[in-house]
């Protein structure tokens, strides 16, 4: 299979990036060091090429109504200019994808979806489109996307973008870079302050090159995964998949049962929960996806859905899916690493507190 390349491919090669196949794309996994890249985002500023992600546009009188019907979170109730994170569910409540809905203007909505799910999501949404007075278009091929993340993100971007006011966290504005239109959102996947910039391929290439002159650290997907895991953001294919519902992944806050109706409401109304997603830290050993999670009697109670070494804590961290009827009362968890049990500590708050506003 031929892999897609983003319009920044040549830039990545020039920077010496290690490129790997990801969701059908040849993407930079790291440039210099995963640790240095992750720490640049925590302490300074880094930029990710996430052009592989999908962009759908919904335009017309019923745009908000259509999207509100599709997703579990509240879209109609959010003001224009807000971004809303939400799962997209089937009638039976299982998760098709998780996505961000951007309310650009009245009757104009952008939906940003995971690269691996573009076709699946589009087909699904298209099949539910009938009866709504709005257009629904997949413009994933027309847009590139940069995520500029870290405490210095605002000061890097301010001189570059026209009329960049102090937009709030999880808000979106339409702005411009030189003569290019851009959609600028104060969102991200790292827990730090930062922006996601949707624009034409030429504009994104120019912005990327400009950022490289401003000592912004280019960051690959490996550091992005460490950063999102440190702040406990779920990743589709790991914490979320076609088999689980939002409650199983600790996303009850994204299911607004007070909404009149949405796809999956009937199934989700009784809050059916088969799993509990827990946060674990390990002083010794590094938990990895697929490792069994044990109780104090060494019985398997669940499985690690994502695990890594935290660059901030310098210890192993994991999200783990525990069978709801096997959650140990004594809160003792162990992770089976190569047939040896390692003690894990259950934590209630994200491993790292990001600096986003």
């Amino acid at each position, binding site marked *: 299979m031929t892999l897609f390349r983003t319009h920044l491919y040549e830039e990545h090669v020039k920077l010496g990036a290690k490129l790997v196949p990801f969701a059908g794309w040849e993407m930079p996994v790291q440039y210099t*060091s995963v640790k240095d890249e992750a720490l640049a985002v925590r302490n300074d500023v880094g930029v990710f090429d996430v052009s592989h992600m999908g962009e759908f546009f919904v335009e017309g009188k019923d745009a908000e109504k259509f999207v509100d019907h599709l997703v579990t979170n509240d879209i109609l109730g959010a003001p224009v200019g807000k971004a809303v994170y939400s799962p997209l569910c089937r009638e039976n409540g299982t998760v098709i994808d998780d996505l961000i809905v951007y309310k650009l203007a009245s009757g104009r909505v952008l939906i940003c979806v995971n690269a691996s799910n573009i076709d699946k999501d589009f087909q699904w949404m298209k099949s539910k489109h009938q009866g709504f007075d709005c257009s629904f278009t997949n413009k994933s091929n027309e847009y590139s996307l940069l995520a500029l993340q870290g405490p210095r993100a605002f000061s890097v971007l301010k001189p570059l973008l026209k009329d960049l006011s102090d937009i709030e966290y999880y808000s979106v504005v339409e702005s411009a870079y030189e003569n290019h239109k851009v959609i600028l959102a104060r969102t991200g996947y790292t827990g730090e302050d930062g922006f996601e910039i949707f624009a034409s391929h030429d504009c994104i290439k120019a912005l990327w090159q400009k950022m490289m002159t401003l000592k912004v650290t280019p960051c690959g997907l490996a550091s992005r995964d*460490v950063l999102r895991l440190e702040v406990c953001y779920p990743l589709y294919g790991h914490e979320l998949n076609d088999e689980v519902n939002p409650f199983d992944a600790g996303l009850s806050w994204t299911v607004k049962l007070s909404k009149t109706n949405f796809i999956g409401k009937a199934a989700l109304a009784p809050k059916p929960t088969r799993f509990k997603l827990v946060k674990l830290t390990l002083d010794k050993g590094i938990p990895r996806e697929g490792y069994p999670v044990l109780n104090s009697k060494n019985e398997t109670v669940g499985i690690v859905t994502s695990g890594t070494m935290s*660059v901030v804590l310098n210890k192993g961290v994991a999200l783990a899916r525990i069978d709801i009827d096997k959650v140990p009362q004594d809160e003792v968890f162990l992770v089976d690493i190569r047939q040896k049990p390692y003690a894990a500590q259950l934590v209630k708050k994200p491993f790292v507190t990001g600096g986003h506003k």
Partner: protein
Amino acid sequence: MATNIPQNLKYTKEHEWALVEGDTVTIGITDFAQSALGDIVFLEVPDVGSELKAGATFGVVESIKSVSDLYSPVTGEVVTKNSDVEGSPEKINSDAYGAWLIKVKVKDQNELKNLLTADQYQEFCNTSH
């Protein structure tokens, strides 16, 4: 990839190096391997007295994102391990040939013939990834 491959060492196709001194072999991982792995954050090697078998796994090295098995170049008994490097595995990134992992007392000297020379390993690195 430009990589450092000292002439005085022997190598495996799994990217371990071996320094042969009499019947003692010092084992580590190559510069090529540390570069491919990236930031090394965890190392698990057997205790002194453990028996190793040539070609079998004897430990694990982990970077932030990945887990890789270590394969023994020789059969024999572990006589020393480098607890300094076990405690600070990032030393492998800065000096792959200084940061040795274990020393093994070799059972069968004939096995050493199966290991790659520096030139053979260089060739192997050039043709595989």
